[in-house]
């Protein structure tokens, strides 16, 4: 029987994997990111947006500690966007 392969290089972010933490403070962005990552399946992309400055540095630290893939970190007008692949 042929093995069924699922392409994990999804480039469309499912709606439920978008985390909006604009205006939230410590530790909410970190916690909400972790909650989304726990719900994500392998290969899923989680996109987090926020304004808390320290979280922009700390979410990538958590991603590294969790052994996941940090796809991008961008910032425009004080709003950062971090993309993570589980």
């Amino acid at each position, binding site marked *: 029987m042929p093995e069924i392969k699922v392409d994990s290089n999804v480039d469309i972010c499912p709606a439920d994997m978008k985390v909006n933490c604009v*205006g*939230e*403070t*410590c*530790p*909410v962005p*970190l*916690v909400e*990111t*972790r*909650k989304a990552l*726990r719900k994500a399946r392998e290969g899923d992309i989680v996109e987090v947006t926020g304004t808390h400055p320290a979280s922009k540095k700390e979410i990538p*630290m*958590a991603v590294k*500690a*969790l*052994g*996941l893939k940090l796809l991008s970190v961008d910032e425009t007008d004080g709003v950062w966007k971090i993309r993570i692949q589980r």
Partner: protein
Amino acid sequence: MAENTEKATIIVHSGDMDKVYSALIIGNGALAMGMEVSLFFTFWGLQRLKKGGLEKGPLSKMHMFGLGKWMINRKMKAAKVASLEKMIQDFKELGGKILACDMTMDIMGIKAEDLRQDLISDYCGVGTYLDDARDSKITLFIS
């Protein structure tokens, strides 16, 4: 996910609002960063696990018969700091363990049904704490 999970164990000895915040912020941060976390509620800390007791703690400084706490609460709301209730629910959702000190329960005449049993994983003594703490990367005593 990381393969060998690191642990953090925190003793919540104080029931002061600001200190319970510290414990839950550190606990949630550690869970978010992939660690396993246990919070041991003992003495004044355990009072906060009574039904309706979580938000009842005084400020550790400048409480001023509740005026200081009221002012800080207003400032925290303006800064959009999450409530203790949200933090403890997040803590549970991320897989954190909450342990209640059974000796405190005996001393203070607290029964299991007086406590938020939905939150508590176990009622235990110092041995359980040490068993967790001996292989923890981080262990804190919040007094």
